[in-house]
């Protein structure tokens, strides 16, 4: 049995042993203490699903937990429901509440970050006020001593323990499943850069809603069980601020981006809170707990689990890498520029309040061509890229790709129709490795058939030397990660990974697979942008000043790479200020000025046009 199998067997045995622990008739305190550990593990893990994974920092977890508490309290005491029958409702109502809140706030870009935290906190206050001022509670509290508890275990405490344990296992199972799925990958991308995630094909709104609903449902179910544990429910006790604060603290301490991190944090903090319970040392104990937590956060800013993972990764790197299979290179698929129009822009207008950035642009891009898009600053080049890629919705006009209107589609749907883009200032997912960045693009990229072929091709190597074949020499940990990559419809995880490795090699980043973007220089980050765009197998590639900031040798290197990309069959629109590159690369050049198409034609002819020279170049590029 390999290590993976052993760990699975260990998990099954641990679940079995812990599940039947109350049968051992230990003193009830141990059942209770472990229940409270499970309670906090479930709550902190559920918080991490949205806030840790997607970075939407919520201070409103008490709202969902509290709704669950009151669902169970009211249904059992006022309507006579059996306790267990209330739990599905205790989970469902908070999930619906989260969907309702999320459906509004997730659409608004300005409600990210601290505003989202404050908004969720205010949701807690609103819910608490409603419950306090209606017969749901009314202010007198709900006493549940008369509610019968099912005899799932020999003792009532054992039954509560078992329910807490089931929810804990379910929470961890859900978190594990999310992390190892497309959903998890999308959420991590949202965490790092939501706009880029959307542009790479991640359905951000849907994913956030799913994560929010899952998070709220778990919190609600946990609340339902906890109502029985506490016995006397009050609004002030249920919706107190310490619930979200503890949950945040536990998740951050353990590692909020890890499926298991919040559990570690929750177990550690719960144990610490019980370490100093003696009446003589209560205050000193609290102070010691505070100091320990501050120290842990200072020393382990990303949390305990990520720190351990990093340490293990360093140990692994010390061992020689095993033999790695050679990745199949790309087959050149050079096709002549066809007459078929791939991108058709008609009357594209974009206004920002009183400012008109695009004033009715008409532009056709033919399949297989490279179109250079130039113009003075503020002429609308990047806005056009943003409109075509879906970052901005059109004010009026139309944008069609292959005859299909995409002008007002969400960015992720445009990406899935084969439109990929890069950013002038690279915007990698900073907490993902190079490989994970590219895998994400490969996972969420174009859904339909691609012009890209496998089999052989050219590779950019260090120093810009072209070679005909390459292998993907990479860190052994890449092999470990392989089995954790999510499967995409129609392609296995390892196929996606191999494609990603191929594009990493294609852009000359082989050997950097496990590096975080912060460890790359500007040149490499630009190429990572390209690798991500290529991994999406685009039909139309939008390059936004991909050459800016590069030195002459790097520019030459990049020009060769763009040609190699076109050789795979992609159609390219690139915004560029470097005229040498524009002339060398472009089949045609379009000049924008004041949001309108000013000139269009062969590069050298356009560059000689005195009108273009006067508005933009200042002098003729080529005599």
């Amino acid at each position: 049995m390999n290590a993976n199998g052993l760990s699975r067997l260990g998990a099954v045995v641990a679940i079995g042993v812990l599940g039947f622990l109350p049968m051992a008739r230990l003193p009830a305190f141990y059942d209770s203490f472990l229940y409270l550990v499970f309670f906090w593990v479930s709550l902190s893990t559920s918080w991490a699903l949205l806030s840790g994974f997607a970075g939407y920092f919520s201070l409103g977890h008490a709202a969902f937990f509290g709704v669950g508490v009151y669902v169970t309290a009211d249904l059992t005491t006022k309507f006579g429901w059996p306790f267990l029958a209330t739990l599905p409702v205790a989970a469902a109502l908070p999930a619906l509440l989260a969907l309702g809140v999320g459906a509004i706030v997730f659409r608004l870009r300005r409600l990210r970050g601290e505003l989202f935290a404050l908004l969720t906190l205010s949701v807690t206050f609103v819910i608490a006020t409603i419950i306090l001022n209606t017969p749901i509670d009314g202010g007198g509290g709900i006493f549940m001593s008369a509610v019968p508890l099912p005899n799932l275990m020999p003792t009532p405490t054992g039954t509560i323990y078992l329910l807490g344990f089931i929810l804990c296992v379910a929470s961890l199972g859900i978190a594990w499943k999310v992390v190892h799925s497309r959903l998890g990958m999308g959420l991590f991308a949202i965490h790092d850069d939501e706009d880029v995630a959307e542009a790479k094909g991640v359905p951000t709104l849907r994913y956030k809603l799913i994560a929010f609903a899952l998070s709220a449902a778990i919190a609600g179910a946990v609340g339902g069980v906890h109502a029985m544990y506490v016995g006397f429910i009050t609004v002030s006790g249920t919706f107190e601020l310490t619930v979200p604060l503890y949950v945040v603290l536990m998740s951050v301490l353990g590692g909020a981006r890890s499926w298991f991190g919040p559990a570690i944090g929750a177990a550690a903090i719960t144990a610490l809170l019980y370490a100093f319970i003696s009446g003589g040392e209560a205050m000193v104990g609290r102070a010691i707990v505070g100091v320990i937590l501050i120290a842990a956060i200072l020393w382990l800013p990303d949390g305990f689990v990520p720190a351990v993972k990093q340490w293990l990764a360093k140990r692994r790197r010390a061992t020689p890498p095993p033999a790695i299979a050679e990745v199949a290179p790309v087959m050149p698929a050079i096709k002549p520029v066809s007459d078929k129009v791939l991108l058709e822009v008609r009357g594209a207008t974009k206004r920002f309040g009183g400012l008109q950035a695009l004033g009715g642009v008409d532009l056709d891009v033919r399949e297989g061509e490279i179109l250079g898009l130039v113009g003075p600053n503020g002429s609308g080049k990047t806005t056009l890229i943003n409109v075509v890629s879906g970052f901005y919705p059109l004010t009026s006009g139309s944008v069609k790709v292959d005859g299909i209107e995409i002008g007002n589609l969400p960015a992720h749907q445009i990406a899935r129709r084969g439109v990929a883009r890069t950013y002038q200032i690279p915007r990698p997912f900073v907490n993902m490795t190079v490989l994970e960045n590219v895998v994400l693009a490969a996972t969420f990229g174009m859904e339909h058939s691609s012009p890209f072929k496998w089999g052989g091709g050219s590779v950019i190597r260090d120093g810009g030397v072209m070679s005909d074949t390459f292998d993907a020499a990479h860190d052994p940990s890449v092999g470990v990660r392989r089995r954790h990559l999510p499967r995409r419809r129609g392609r296995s995880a390892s196929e996606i990974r191999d494609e990603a490795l191929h594009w990493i090699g294609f852009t000359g980043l082989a050997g950097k697979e496990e590096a975080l973007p912060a460890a790359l220089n500007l040149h490499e980050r630009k190429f990572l942008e390209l690798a991500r765009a290529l991994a999406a197998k685009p039909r139309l590639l939008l390059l936004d000043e991909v050459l800016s900031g590069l030195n002459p040798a790097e520019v030459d290197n990049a020009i060769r790479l763009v040609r190699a990309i076109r050789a795979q069959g992609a159609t390219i629109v690139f915004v560029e200020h470097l005229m040498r590159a524009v002339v060398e690369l472009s089949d045609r050049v379009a000049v924008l000025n004041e949001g309108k198409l000013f000139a269009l034609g062969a590069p050298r002819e356009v560059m000689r046009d005195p009108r273009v020279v006067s508005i933009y170049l200042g002098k003729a590029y080529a005599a």
Partner: protein
Amino acid sequence: MVDRVGAWRRRRVLAGMMGGAATLAAPGLLRAAPSGKPVRVGGTLSLTGFLAQTAMLHKIASEIMIEEINGRNGLLGRPVEYVLLDDQSKPEVARSLYEKLITVDKVDLIQGPYATAPILAAMGVAQRYGKVMIQSSMGIPKLQTYDRAFPATPFGSEPDVTYPNVILDAMATFPAPPKSMVILTSKFPSAQFMALGMKAQAEKRGVKVPLYLEYESGNRDFGAIAARIKEANADFLWVGSLGLESNLLLEALRKLDYKPKNHFHLYPAPGPLAVSADGDKALCSTFIEPDEPFMSRPGMKRIAAEYKEKAAKANLPYPTIDAQACGMVAEWQILEAAVNGAGSLEDEKIAAWLRKNRVDTIYGKARFDGPYNHGDAAQLIKQVQNKEWKVVWPKELAAPGVKLIAS
């Protein structure tokens, strides 16, 4: 002879001195110091968290009472050891710690925690293990459904009926008895419970209630509420407040140039309201104050003095013994009487003894044979006079020379 006489005289003097010494030492000699294995009494208090400030009073009272009990004969001749844990003001922690006390620490007896929610959480545990639990701070007697739970504070079984009538009786003695009453209350369960009772009883006795308002516990902004109170301009203001809420409300009323004609406050922080200029003539609920006739109750003077010393040492802002601390004193007095009276540490016997007997406590005689094991109600009214709280009602328990003053 002279010598003999002198010798006789010396013997008489010596005998007299020895006799005198023996007489002085007699109580100590007759009272055997407790010995043997300690009787372990477990309990939690909210020593940290939002209830910590009030729980500290209970802790000091407990320390005094354990010294008192051990200075007498302990429990069944054995010394008392108090196993005190911190429930962090959280009912769920209180529950787990009572399970720890009973199933892991295996204490002989338990004492109740502070505040309604932790008490109810602990009561469920006590019930599962059949432990007697005496508590002093649960303001809603009907929730005490466990037959071995006993109250140390004389709320009576229906304080929402009895206490409003104490207030209405006192109001009736005013030169111009109030005909209307504004009732304002925190939505804290025990305060709201009393407010609803006050409203019902006032209306029953023909006092109009033109305004009944509830606010969230811990509210800090009383501006809008004050405006409505001023507008209602009733003869009497009844406030179901906790902590500093009364101070904040009176300050908000002052900003509107409105002084309520007569005002009553349920559970305010005693010190800040007494010393505030707004608090002058404020009425409040109590069970006991450090004045006569209460100071003449057995042990009260000594306990009050010890409390003052310990509270000052602990830097408490109001180091005078009050009803909160006396509740804990009564808890220990009841436990001591019940264990020694039953002659047993068995909970069943202790509970049976309590149901059949009366106990002398700092609050007076307590009985436990009424509904929810509650006995007679003994809630009083105190009033701020010259920046001090003085019991003013009923008249027979008023501090010497002090009368209820209508505004």
